[in-house]
C-alpha cells in the first residue's frame, strides 16, 4: 500500500470489477481513437484540397473588373438633364471598355515597392481555342513573364517535361498542361494553333508540359509569353489585364488586397475570397468531425457515468462504513472520482495510441487513382495538437461523467444505511 489511502481504495475497487472497468475504458478508448482518426483524416483532406487549390491561386489577384455601374448613362446625352422626366433604360450594357489595367508599368513598379509584397507577376489572361481535328478546345491562355510566374507558383517543380525557362528560349513557345497535351496529342517540340476570339491565329511550339494535379488547370490552361499574347491580341506592349501577387506572409492578403484596390482603383481579390468555397468546405468537414467525435466521447462518458452509478449503488454500505470511520466527503469524492479518472486516462492513452495506429494505417493505404486529384495515398495529418485536444476532451468528459456519481456517493447519509 504505497498509494495514499483513498487511491489505494480506488485501486482495489477498480481491480475487483475488472470486466466493468475494461468496458468503461474501452468506451473512452474508442471515442478518442475515432476522434483522432477522424480529425487526422479530415485535416489531411482539408490540407490536400487547400494545397492543390491554393497552388493555383495567387495570394492577391488584381484585375480590371467589368463595372456594372450604370449611374452615368449615355442616355443622358439624348434626353438632356430634365428633372421633370423619368428615363428608364431596360437591360443596359456597359460601354465597350478595354479590360486592361491603365498605367500598368506604374502600377507594377508601385506594387513592387509596397512592403509585404514578394513577387509581382503581370499577365494577360484570355480565352483562346485550340483546334484538334473537328474538336475545338477552349482554354485560358496566360501571357506571362514566366520567371515571375515561376516564383509565384513554383512551376519548375510541376514540370513533367521541359523547364519553364524554355518558354523564353523557344520562338513562340507554349507551356501546356499534361491532360491538354494528351487531348491534343502533342509533345515537346510539336506545334499547336491557338485562335483568339477576334479570329486571329498563331502557331505555338510546345516548350514544356506541366502537371499541377488539378484537372481544371492541367486541362484548361496554357502559358505563353506576354509578348506573344499581346501580338496575338494585337495589343501594345503595355497591355496587361491581370496582376498576380505573392506576399511574404499570405495572412496579410486580405488587408493588402484592400489597400491595393483603393490605391489603384481596380479590383483586388485575396486568396481567401477567391477560395471561399474551400474555407466553407473545410469548415463543414471540421464541424462534422467535431460533432461526431464529441458525440462518441459523450457516449463514452455516459458509459462511465452508468458504471460508476451502478458501482456506487452497490457500495452504499461501504461508503457508510468509511464515513463512520472518519472518511469525509472529500475522501469519498476522491475515491470514486479517481476511479473514473483512471478509467478515463487509461482509456484516453489507449485511444490516442489506437487513433494513431488507425491514422497511420490509413495514411499508407493507396488512394484510388483519380484524374482530378493527384495523391498516392489517403491524406492523413499527424498533428500533436489533435492528440492534445483528444486527451483534453477525454479527460474533460471523464471528469464530468465521474463527478456526478462521486458527488452522489459523498452525499450518502451513513445513518440511513447503517440503521436500515
Amino acid at each position, binding site marked *: *500500500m*504505497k498509494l495514499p*489511502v483513498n487511491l*489505494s*481504495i480506488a485501486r*482495489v*475497487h477498480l481491480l*475487483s470489477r475488472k470486466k466493468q472497468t475494461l468496458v468503461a475504458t474501452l468506451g473512452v478508448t474508442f471515442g478518442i481513437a475515432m476522434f483522432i482518426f477522424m480529425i487526422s483524416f479530415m485535416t489531411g483532406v482539408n490540407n490536400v484540397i487547400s494545397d492543390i487549390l491554393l497552388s493555383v491561386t495567387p495570394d492577391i489577384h488584381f484585375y480590371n473588373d467589368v463595372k456594372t455601374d450604370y449611374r452615368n448613362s449615355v442616355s443622358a446625352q439624348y434626353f438632356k438633364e430634365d428633372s421633370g422626366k423619368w428615363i428608364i433604360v431596360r437591360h443596359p450594357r456597359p460601354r465597350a471598355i478595354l479590360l486592361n489595367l491603365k498605367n500598368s508599368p506604374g502600377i507594377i513598379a508601385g506594387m513592387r515597392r509596397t512592403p509585404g509584397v514578394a513577387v509581382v507577376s503581370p499577365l494577360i489572361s484570355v480565352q483562346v481555342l485550340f483546334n484538334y481535328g473537328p474538336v475545338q478546345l477552349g482554354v485560358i491562355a496566360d501571357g506571362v513573364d514566366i520567371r515571375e510566374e515561376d516564383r509565384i507558383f513554383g512551376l519548375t517543380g510541376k514540370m513533367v517535361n521541359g523547364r519553364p525557362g524554355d518558354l523564353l528560349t523557344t520562338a513562340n513557345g507554349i507551356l501546356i498542361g499534361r491532360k491538354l497535351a494528351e487531348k491534343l496529342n502533342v509533345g515537346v517540340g510539336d506545334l499547336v494553333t491557338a485562335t483568339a476570339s477576334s479570329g486571329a491565329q498563331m502557331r505555338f511550339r510546345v516548350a514544356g508540359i506541366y502537371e499541377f494535379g488539378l484537372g481544371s488547370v492541367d486541362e484548361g490552361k496554357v502559358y505563353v509569353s506576354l509578348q506573344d499574347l499581346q501580338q496575338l491580341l494585337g495589343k501594345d506592349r503595355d497591355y496587361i489585364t491581370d496582376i498576380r501577387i505573392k506576399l511574404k506572409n499570405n495572412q496579410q492578403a486580405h488587408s493588402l488586397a484592400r489597400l491595393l484596390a483603393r490605391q489603384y482603383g481596380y479590383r483586388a481579390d485575396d486568396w481567401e475570397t477567391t477560395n471561399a468555397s474551400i474555407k466553407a468546405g473545410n469548415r463543414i468537414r471540421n464541424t462534422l468531425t467535431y460533432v461526431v467525435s464529441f458525440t462518441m466521447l459523450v457516449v463514452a462518458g455516459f458509459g462511465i457515468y452508468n458504471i460508476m452509478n451502478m458501482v456506487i449503488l452497490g457500495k452504499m*454500505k*461501504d461508503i*457508510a*462504513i*468509511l*464515513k*463512520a*470511520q*472518519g*472518511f*469525509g*466527503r*472529500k*475522501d469519498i469524492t476522491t475515491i470514486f472520482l479517481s476511479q473514473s479518472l483512471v478509467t478515463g486516462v487509461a482509456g484516453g492513452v489507449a485511444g490516442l495510441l489506437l487513433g494513431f495506429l488507425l491514422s497511420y494505417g490509413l495514411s499508407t493505404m493507396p488512394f484510388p487513382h483519380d484524374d482530378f486529384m493527384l495523391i498516392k495515398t489517403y491524406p492523413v495529418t499527424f498533428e500533436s495538437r489533435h492528440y492534445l485536444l483528444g486527451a483534453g476532451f477525454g479527460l474533460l468528459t471523464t471528469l464530468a461523467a465521474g463527478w456526478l456519481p462521486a458527488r452522489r456517493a459523498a452525499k450518502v447519509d*451513513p*445513518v440511513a444505511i*447503517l*440503521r436500515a
Partner: protein
Amino acid sequence: MATEVLKAEKLVKVFTEPARQQVLYDVSLSVDKGQFVTIMGKSGCGKSTLLYLLSTLDTDYEGTVTIMGMEVTGLDEEELAKFRNEHIGFVFQFHFLLPEFTALENVMLPALKLGRWDAATVEERAMDKLRQMEMDGYARQPSGKLSGGQQQRVAIARALINEPDLILADEPTGNLDSANTERVIGIFRELARQGNTIIVVTHDRDLAERADRIVEMADGRIVG
C-alpha cells in the same frame, strides 16, 4: 476524579419522515473515562437513535454533545469525519467490513486515513489488534470469506486501531450465535478492563449485565 469522556445534554430528536415523530425527549447522559456502559430498552425506545447522535454521524438534533471536552454539535461534516477518525471507534450489528479488502487491510484503513503512523507501523499495529482478537491467522484473507463471528472480531480490531477515546457499538452481538456472543462479550469486558470507554446499545441481557453501568431507556427517555 474521573475524566468525563462524553457529555450529552438535553438531546431532542424528531423524525419528520415519514410522519412527525419525536423519539428522544431531553436525554442527558454523562460517561466517564474507563466506563463500560450499556444502553438497554425495547426496540423503538430510541436507544440506537441516541447512539447515532453520540457518534456524530447524525447531526440533525437539538441539545449538545461534548466528547473529550470538545463540543461536536454544530461542527461541519469534514470536521466531524476527522473527529470520528481520531476519537471514535465503531462496531455495528452487521460487522460491515469492506468485502474486497483483506481483514488486515480493513483494520488498517482508518489508521492510514488518520496518518499518525507510517504504513509499516500501521500494519504492525493492525496485526497486534488482530492478535488481540485472535484473528491474526486470518489477516490475509479477504474479509468476505470470514464467518460472522470472525468478521465481528475484525470489526472490533478496526474500531480499536486509532486508540479511540470512545468505542461505540450498536447491537454488536445481535447477529451472532451464542458461542460468538460469549466471545464478543469477553472481548468488551477485557477492553473495559484495559481502560477503554465503551458504550454499547443492546437488548442482550447477558451482555448488559457484564457492564459497569446499565442505562435503561423507554419511549425516548432515560428511565434508569
